[in-house]
């Protein structure tokens, strides 16, 4: 049912800018697979979070002052004096975390169901571009309150660029606008933090355009074949997304109203002090896996390259995964590897928050007393004291997890893509849906 405007005013606009026809098509004509699970609600949630962040950010910017002498106090002014300022600040801070939670789940959905495979490679790339823009935006946004973590996080990460040979130092002082993170840095980060979200909006428009070109993937990974494989987006997925939104908002509200500082770091309530480094510099949780990879490499440039490499390798994924089958539902070995990979990512996140020189596992017992590398003796028997008898260092664990991360993409995926024997695919989406709802279930399921 194509768009036939009855109202003459609507028709007038439509003849000049067919935007309503576009909306009509997207809602009523766009063939959406009828078997999409709740894993498909995260895309719309991400879009909503982008709007939430932009709106809350713009109103916060009405009260914030991007100057090193006033930034911290202006944020407290928002928290204490601005009407509902505390609500807007916590909404924006926790909203950032919620945005990343939603986007990570959205990305993992894509990894599991092969949504990055042909013909959706560009869709996947646009998503990765959005992800990188989000990271840049979040990184700069975190600097704005000008707390200890703001300042030192900015210092550590901008310093990384000095690892680039020859031009590294110049690039860093260019980024800083000076000889260290200071007022020029804060001011430009504010400007760019305001700008980038609108670049993200542009990328999201392209992302949705690319999606609509080939249509959504679905849990079976099989393309739409018959008319009965698909349903109109409205009302089916609009109401499903609304329900998903309500549940998501409950979780968001739980953090915002009852644990607003849980995902943050207390040190950021201390005003930035360039002469005092915090005991443990940690980025926000959503950067932790990349931080772990960075610190796993003993060489500065190597760590930087591997950290960016971890994201760059995702661009190559459509060509690294050689399997013709999309969905993990029908790829038993790939499915197992996926879950191992997910655990590795969680592990990397955890390791990113641990101290660089500590031990993950320590077993205490009696150890010989050592002095200058020589065991101390008494009456011919070694002196013993309390100590660590066995330890697994954080660095070692991070290195193992980092190695596995790259092995997953560079070795495991190509190999099993070529040699894996997939489960038999259903003939169509409809058949798959029917076989699930009928009393005698036959087809393999996740």
């Amino acid at each position, binding site marked *: 049912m194509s768009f036939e405007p009855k109202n003459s005013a609507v028709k007038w606009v439509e003849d000049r800018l067919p935007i309503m026809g576009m909306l009509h098509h997207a809602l009523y004509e766009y063939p959406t697979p009828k078997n999409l699970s709740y894993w498909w609600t995260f895309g719309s949630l991400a879009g909503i979070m982008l709007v939430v962040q932009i709106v809350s950010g713009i109103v916060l910017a009405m009260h914030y002052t991007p100057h090193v002498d006033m930034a911290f106090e202006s944020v407290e002014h928002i928290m204490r004096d601005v009407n509902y300022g*505390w609500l807007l600040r916590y909404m924006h801070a926790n909203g950032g975390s919620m945005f990343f939670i939603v986007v990570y789940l959205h990305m993992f959905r894509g990894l599991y169901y092969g949504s990055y495979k042909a013909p959706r490679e560009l869709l996947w790339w646009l998503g990765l571009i959005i992800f990188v823009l989000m990271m840049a935006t979040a990184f700069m946004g975190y600097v704005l309150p000008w707390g200890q973590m703001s300042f030192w996080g900015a210092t550590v990460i901008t310093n990384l660029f000095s690892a680039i040979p020859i031009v590294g130092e110049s690039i860093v002082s260019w980024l800083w606008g000076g000889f260290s993170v200071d007022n020029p840095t804060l001011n430009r980060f504010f400007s760019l933090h305001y700008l980038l979200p609108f670049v993200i909006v542009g990328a999201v428009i392209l992302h949705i355009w690319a999606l609509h070109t080939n249509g959504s993937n679905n849990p079976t990974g099989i393309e739409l074949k018959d008319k009965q494989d698909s349903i109109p987006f409205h009302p089916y997925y609009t*109401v499903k997304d609304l329900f998903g939104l309500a549940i998501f908002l409950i979780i968001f509200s*739980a953090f*915002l*109203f009852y644990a*607003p500082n849980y995902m943050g770091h207390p040190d950021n309530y201390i005003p930035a002090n360039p002469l005092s480094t915090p005991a443990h510099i940690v980025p926000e949780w959503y950067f932790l896996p990349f931080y772990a990879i960075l610190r796993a490499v003993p060489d500065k440039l190597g760590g930087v390259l591997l950290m960016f490499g971890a994201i760059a390798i995702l661009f190559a994924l459509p060509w690294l995964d050689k399997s013709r089958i999309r969905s993990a539902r029908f790829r038993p070995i790939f499915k197992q590897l996926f879950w191992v990979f997910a655990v590795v990512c969680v592990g990397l996140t955890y390791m990113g928050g641990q101290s660089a020189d500590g031990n993950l596992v320590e077993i205490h017992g009696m150890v010989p007393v050592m002095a200058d590398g020589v065991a101390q003796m008494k009456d011919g028997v070694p002196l013993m004291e309390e100590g660590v008898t066995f330890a697994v260092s954080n660095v070692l664990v991070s290195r193992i997890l980092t190695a596995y991360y790259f092995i997953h993409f560079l070795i495991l995926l190509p190999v099993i893509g070529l040699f894996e024997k997939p489960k038999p695919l259903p003939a169509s989406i409809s058949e798959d849906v029917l076989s699930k709802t009928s009393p005698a279930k036959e087809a393999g399921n996740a």
Partner: protein
Amino acid sequence: MLRVIKSLGLAALVSVAAMGGAQAAGGSVDLKSVSWNHSGMFGTYDRASAQRGLQVYREVCAGCHGLGLVAFRTLSDLGFSEEEIKAIAAESDYIDGPDGEGEMFERPGKPFDAFPTPFPNENAARASNNGAYPPDLSLMVKARASGDNYLYSLLTGYVDAPEGFELPDGMNYNAYFPDHKIAMPSPLIEDGVEYSDGTAATIDQQAKDVTVFLTWAAEPKMEQRKSIGLRVILFLLILAGLFYAVKKKVWSDLH
């Protein structure tokens, strides 16, 4: 085989999580835990305790520690009257101006002023305190993990150093301060203040009261936040229920 790897990996993660958790916190000392009135979903500030805490702050702490983000007028949250607030404000002097002649002058505090900072800048603060810097306390409770329990533990944690512990000159042993060496000597003494409501001013009581006051000082909007939060979440639960029914209804015609 891969399932074994997956299970092992998961098990390893889970089993070291508890151990690693303590490491991540940065300190292996368990804090004392008080059941504060302000904790939990329905917590509110104990006004009487907070008022006593204000007295402790002004009489014991304000000599060295500023509270520069808290305006006197916000004390009305704790039940102080406008007259009481004016009186408290007027006890401090503030530099204002320039006047008609271009001179700066001093005037008594007004409700719109904030609590004073005792030193004009960090260098002056350090010079007066053997190089140590008494931090502003406006956000101290939020600037430390489990800030209220931490502050209470710290203030009641001045015990004798264990045998053989090396304590440099001018430092004091505290069981809860990182590395156990703190420049500030124990600030609270038994009956150090005289509470107007007659409560016995034990060290423990003073520590609790000043902690409640400083928790409010760091988060004056906590009560509104929790009360709005309750209404929001209840509303969303009903809305989610409605949307679920709508979803089921809309999708029912597909099968």
